[in-house]
């Protein structure tokens, strides 16, 4: 039963959990917590089941290589002489999203453990958390663009309340800023989605318009003369329509990623969000931006990968360097980690822009690895925040002597984040830089200076992490307020930190565990983008 509907179960299981919680009396918080924990444990088991039933040897990229497919018509709107709009419930996995589904399973469970000490309005909190989990899973699994968009946009609302109700002092400002930024991003994507659904038909020559992303890949499915088809001759503001559409999609996902210069919502959201929400934000939500580049941007507009790849690479490098330099100047630990996230996400853009197999495999791995490592970083900063309500770096010194276990965990996390060999981040960034060099030498998309500057970003990363480590953990023990109860890690905190740290190490030593899952799809993806991009460009240039 579940075998046929594994992905659907994955998506809606948390919602079921929320439904169960509705019937638990509000003051029975312990039951609610355990329902949440049980749901997410089951969810993780199901993602593991999905990973184990995923056949990583299937080659190619496109509708043939999708697995665990569930597809049925959902909405069929017929509109007079225009024809009809078909929206499908279409979920599937391939090498692009299977690793991210696994990541979500892990991080969402860690998030529940991290939420254990939430005291305020427990029921509402966990119900929102479950709704958020459903929309995250749905977003990664949807192959129909309407379905994707539904989950993509619906995730904002629980996030808004989770930051707005359970956040820090400036939570009202941070939550509305988060909402507005990401809503603008998703509206840009909406514009393109409207255009695509009107241009693409289910069967070439027919009039059943579709939101199926797989159909949007091949030029035959575009109605001749429709605005986003290759033979459309019109332009707007001097841009041809397909490039303009790509630009909008790209900007939309860049806000979510976030890329410089539309990243300013992230530090605010992180600083104000409660620890578990920061964990989910950095660990999973940002990845949707990167995933969107792949699943929607490059897949539907492969020609833009060639014509605009240089700019994407450039913005990737700008994000790497700029965010790292801003991180150097931060006085708040969470802000520092937030900027380091922006910097690390710049690598994803660089790897993707290189259009090489190494680069893209590295980018997919980077999404996964950064999910694990940033979750670890935010959990650790949460540990400190739980004890002191204060994350000012300058208020601490010599914590190593008082909190040895915590310091060890922090050292591991920082080294994993700065890309020390042996951790997953190193492999991912190494592959990305190798891919970028390869792309610069053999291809015409990137320039040599980009991977060189990317390397510089690694150095800067080392600088701000080591500096922080030195300032907060080494030297003479001193904290600003003597009243703070500085106790070392509790069992619950170990439960979160040890698995994450082990995973960062495990996937650093055996990166094949993740890379093998995505490998065949990445090869197929790069091949598809190159070939289809060439074909599309030759038609466009006619």
């Amino acid at each position: 039963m579940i075998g046929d509907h594994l992905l659907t179960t994955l998506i809606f299981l948390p919602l079921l959990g929320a439904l169960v919680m509705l019937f638990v009396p509000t003051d029975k918080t312990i039951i609610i917590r355990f329902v949440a924990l049980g749901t997410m444990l089951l969810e993780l088991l199901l993602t593991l089941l999905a990973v184990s039933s995923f056949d990583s040897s299937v080659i190619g990229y496109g509708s043939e290589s999708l697995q665990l497919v569930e597809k049925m018509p959902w909405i069929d709107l017929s509109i007079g002489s225009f024809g009809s709009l078909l929206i499908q419930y279409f979920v599937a996995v391939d090498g692009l999203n299977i690793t991210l589904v696994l990541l979500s399973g892990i991080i969402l469970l860690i998030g529940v453990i991290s939420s254990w000490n939430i005291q305020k309005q427990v029921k509402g909190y966990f119900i929102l958390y479950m709704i958020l989990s459903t929309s995250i899973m749905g977003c990664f699994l949807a192959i129909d663009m309407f379905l994707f968009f539904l989950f993509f946009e619906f995730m904002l609302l629980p996030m808004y309340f989770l930051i707005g109700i359970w956040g820090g002092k400036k939570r009202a400002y941070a939550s509305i800023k988060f909402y507005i930024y990401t809503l603008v991003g998703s509206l840009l994507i909406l514009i393109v989605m409207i255009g695509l659904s009107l241009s693409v038909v289910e069967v070439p020559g027919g009039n059943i318009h579709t939101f199926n992303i797989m159909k949007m890949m091949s030029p035959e499915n575009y109605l001749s003369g429709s605005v986003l088809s290759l033979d459309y001759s019109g332009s707007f503001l001097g841009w041809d329509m397909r490039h303009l559409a790509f630009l909008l999609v790209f900007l939309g996902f860049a806000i979510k990623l976030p890329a410089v210069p539309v990243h300013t919502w992230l530090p605010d959201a992180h600083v104000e969000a409660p620890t578990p929400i920061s964990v989910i934000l950095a660990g999973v939500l940002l990845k949707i931006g990167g995933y969107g580049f792949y699943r929607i941007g490059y897949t539907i507009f492969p020609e833009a990968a060639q014509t605009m790849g240089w700019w994407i690479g450039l913005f990737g490098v700008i994000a790497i360097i700029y965010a790292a330099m801003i991180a150097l100047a931060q006085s708040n630990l969470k802000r520092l980690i937030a900027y380091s996230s922006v910097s690390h996400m710049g690598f994803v853009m660089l790897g993707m822009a290189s259009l090489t197999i190494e680069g893209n495999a590295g980018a997919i791995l980077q999404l996964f690895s950064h999910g694990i490592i940033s979750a670890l970083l935010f959990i650790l900063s949460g540990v400190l925040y739980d004890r002191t309500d204060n994350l000012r770096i300058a208020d601490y010194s010599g914590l190593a002597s008082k909190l040895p276990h915590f310091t060890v965990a922090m050292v591991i996390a920082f080294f994993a984040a700065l890309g020390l060999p042996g951790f997953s981040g190193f492999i991912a960034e190494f592959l990305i830089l190798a891919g970028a060099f390869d792309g610069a030498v053999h291809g015409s998309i990137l320039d040599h200076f980009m991977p060189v500057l990317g390397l510089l970003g690694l150095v800067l990363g080392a600088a701000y992490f080591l500096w922080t480590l030195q300032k907060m953990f080494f030297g003479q023990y001193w904290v600003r307020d003597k009243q703070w109860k500085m106790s070392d890690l509790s069992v619950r905190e170990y439960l979160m930190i040890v698995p994450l740290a082990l995973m960062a190490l495990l996937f650093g030593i055996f990166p094949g565990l993740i890379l093998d899952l995505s490998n065949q799809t990445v090869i197929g993806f790069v091949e598809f983008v190159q070939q289809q991009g060439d074909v599309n460009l030759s038609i466009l240039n006619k």
Partner: protein
Amino acid sequence: MNQVGTQIQQLILGFSYLLSEVIITVGAILVLIMQLIVKEKGELFKRLFTIAVLAVAALSIGQQSIDGEFMIGLLWQSSLLRIIKALFIGIAIVVFVFPNEKKLYNQGEYYFLILMVLLGAMLVIQSANFLVFYIAVELVSISSYVLVVFSFRPKGYEAGLKYLLFGAMSSGIMLYGMSLIYGLTGSLNIPDFSIAIISQLSNSPWLVMAIVLFAIGLLFKLAMAPMHIWAPDAYEAGPTPVVGYISVLPKASVFIFAFALVMYTGIPSVSWGWNQGLSVVAITSMFIGNLAALRQTNLKRLMAYSSIAHSGFIIVGLIAGGDFGIQSLVFYLVIYALMNLGMFYFIAVLEQSGINQIEDLSGLGKKNIGFSILGLVILIALIGLPPTAGFTAKLLVFSALWESYTKNPEGYLMWLLGIGVLNSALSLFYYLKIPYQMIIKEGSKKRLSVSRTNVAVLTFFSILILIFFFKPDLLLNILNQTSFAF
């Protein structure tokens, strides 16, 4: 003599197609008579009687039908228009479910005027003649002027007077436009108008002037920029059920009439700048509505600006035109009616506890979380976010616009699309103030009493709004099977 005889015969025959209108008129008169007998008593009886009249009227719609002109070409009907008539009656029934102080429901005139607005709106969409349209739309307007002052407060008189003066002026402008049309074509029948403009008057400056003047009158009825100034005062001061009612019904009827006029006469192809002009109106309405709403503190004033902005979205369906345009426009109107009536019902419940400012809402969500969530669903729909039908409505309207761009690639349509879609983000700011105050903000100053009926009615609205997101086919397939053409 003989010709007059056949005409009279035709007129009498025509009443059989207007059975529901006749029932409403008779019902309205009976309520007035009742008022003379029982005075300000029998609130429940009056209410039930009116609802019964409306139900009978709704059932009688399909009895005798015609597709095309009737009553010597003064009116017309089509299958789509009959469905819309039924929807209008449904909206009127909802108004009587609103909670309010006995003062309102005790007045027989209140029922009479509500029915008159309904009658006018039903005739507006069926009118095939400018003069009939004028009479019908004035029936709507004059009844609305009076209804706005039914709160019997000084502020209400001021708003009603503003509404009346401004309305009278714009009616005058509209009449002047109609007189020019008569002068140019020698007839006030809309079919004649279409023949005349297609044959010879293409792009004549007089024609453009006539159309512009007429359109200004329409914009007043639609509460769209730049003729929207009456709306905030009227909305703030009027009794809440009335405001919910006049924010939906007159607007919807005039939109349908405007679409029929445009479709039938092909104005966009003969009058220079028609669609450009409408696009400017749409964009300014969206901006004025959304920007002014940002600074509002009163719930009903906020909703006034919100409906100005929504008119800007609805008119996009008119600009798009074609099958897609009309279906998306009607779909949007239905959803708009659900959202607005739902929201005004929500406000009416709050008003019972003496709450009409946004800041009064702070912390109320914790006292009744179910009620706040129902309000949240409606607000999410007003912003236009999934999973609510508000999103589907916007998606369809903008899809229709994109489709019209495919046929007629003019840059301003793309600007309209981009600005329109991004305006949703602007509206997020002020709609979210309400759940922000209710759910996020702490410390409440006010009490809130919500009855089971209130929750049930709001649940009804919310569920419909959700259902039409998950299954918009339920509504659109009905629209698709009907035809708009006459």
